[in-house]
């Protein structure tokens, strides 16, 4: 049962995070806190999403999620990045009922098991919500709903 939550891919990202550390220059920054556990994340994005940097402290789920976000979204054009973002949020809020699309989500499909643990969904979403705020502050693109 725990294997579904703590997939090897998640533990790998947790132990060896990709792209960690805050970098400059950046277009927007956001700092989010999970008040129930004190987990924190700071995310910086450049306006063209050529770099997404982050730092934080927290559980394996929140920190691995930031590492995966960095891998999946860096370098995408804004519309594509927001599509992945939307798919990830939908997966996390799907109570385990949403079938993840690996073509869209890449490594982020490893978090499918997290959706079955309501107490941990917030952990997985923490960096993604911070990313969204940082992107808005940087003026990155517009959301797909608006462009559609």
């Amino acid at each position, binding site marked *: 049962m725990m294997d579904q939550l703590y997939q090897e891919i998640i533990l790998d990202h947790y132990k060896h995070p990709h792209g960690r550390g805050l970098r400059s220059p950046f277009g927007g920054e956001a700092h989010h806190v999970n008040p129930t*556990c004190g987990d924190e994340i700071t995310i910086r994005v450049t306006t063209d999403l050529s770099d997404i940097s982050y730092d934080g402290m*927290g559980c394996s789920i929140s920190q691995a999620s930031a590492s995966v976000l960095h891998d999946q979204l860096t370098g995408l054009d804004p519309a594509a990045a927001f599509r992945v973002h939307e798919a990830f949020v939908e997966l996390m809020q799907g109570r385990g009922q949403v079938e993840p699309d690996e073509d869209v989500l890449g490594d982020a499909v490893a978090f499918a098991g997290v959706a079955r643990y309501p107490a941990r969904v917030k952990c997985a979403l923490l960096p993604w919500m911070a990313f969204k705020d940082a992107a808005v502050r940087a003026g990155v693109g517009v959301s797909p709903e608006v462009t559609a």
Partner: protein
Amino acid sequence: MSSFDVARVRADFPILGREINGHPLVYLDSANTSQKPVQVLDVMRAHAEQHNANVSRSVHTLGTESTAAYEDARAKVATFIGAASPDEVVFTKNSTEALNLVAHSAGEMLGVGPGDEIVISEMEHHSNIVPWQLLCRRTGATLRWFGVTDDGRLDESTLDELVNERTKIVSLVHMSNILGTINDVSRIVARAHQVGALVLLDCSQSVPHLPLSVSALGADFIAFTGHKMVGPTGIGVLWGRGAVLADLPPFLGGGSMIETVTLEHTTFAAPPARFEAGTPPITEAIGLGAAVDYLSAIGMDEIHRHEQEITGYALKTLADLPGVRVFGLGTPEGRGGTVSFDVDGIHPHDVGQILDDLGVQVRVGHHCARPVCARFGVAAMTRASFYLYTTTDEIDALARGIEQVRRVFG
């Protein structure tokens, strides 16, 4: 010769027969909320089924029965804590409401203002920090606090400077909900009274676990809550010394707390009614009375002795595990059965998740005592807390779980 039989105690708690994720439930979160025995559940059900009516305002039979049961519960609680009279026992929603009540009403009674000081400690639950911050914000008073030593005790080295003639109220935790430290408050109470300050003790973690007498503690108020002492949620207690309560202005206004009301002016009822506006949690108060009966029948001395044994066993077990660091006192002396620890720097959420998979229920996070976590340089802790139904087998299950945590994240 001890008559305490943990197996017999456990048989009173139906939930302890549950399985979690295919494993027997190991409930190590009693400092968060305790489990309830059938004796409490039965009394609450019987009241709802046979005696339910509002209290203090009906002449009919059910109202009379309900009022009698509610007041009987108050008398039981008074006896349990050694109060001089049931009138010193105010029913609240929980400890938090009791603490807020004192922060508001004692703040008003004492005319707290700029230049005055309120003293708390670094060891407090947020519920004994925020109400005082709010009081200081309303009045311009200054909030000060005792620090915590490296071994997890209150640092009293600056007592005489910290508690001084400007101090109006000292509000301290009796037993820490995160470190388990039981504070010997005698010197602080004496100093506070010497300078004319009132003393409030947050006894949420001590009343459920220790034989306790308000006369021996010497404070002016204590606060505690029903759901941590085998009673229901929704019911808490503020005990106040009779002479202090008599002068204390009301907190919430409404029905039941008045003497006479005109549209221009209201006079207030005597304590405890003055502080119980509106329909109280009647069934819950009666359930708390049943909880007090249950604990008293077993004996608080026996319960405390059992928890000391379990705590000693747990501290030794944790000390023998590689990678585990216990925060606070390392032996049972001067502490209760609440033990917080770190496992190899692995985040407590991950520790708690693996333990849950093995049926072990612990609390993880900052435990509503973030300043304590900050004091010990961590964002969060894992906490195991014990009660009269905890066994050494459960401590062994915790230890096996911690070994599994290290295998997954090592």
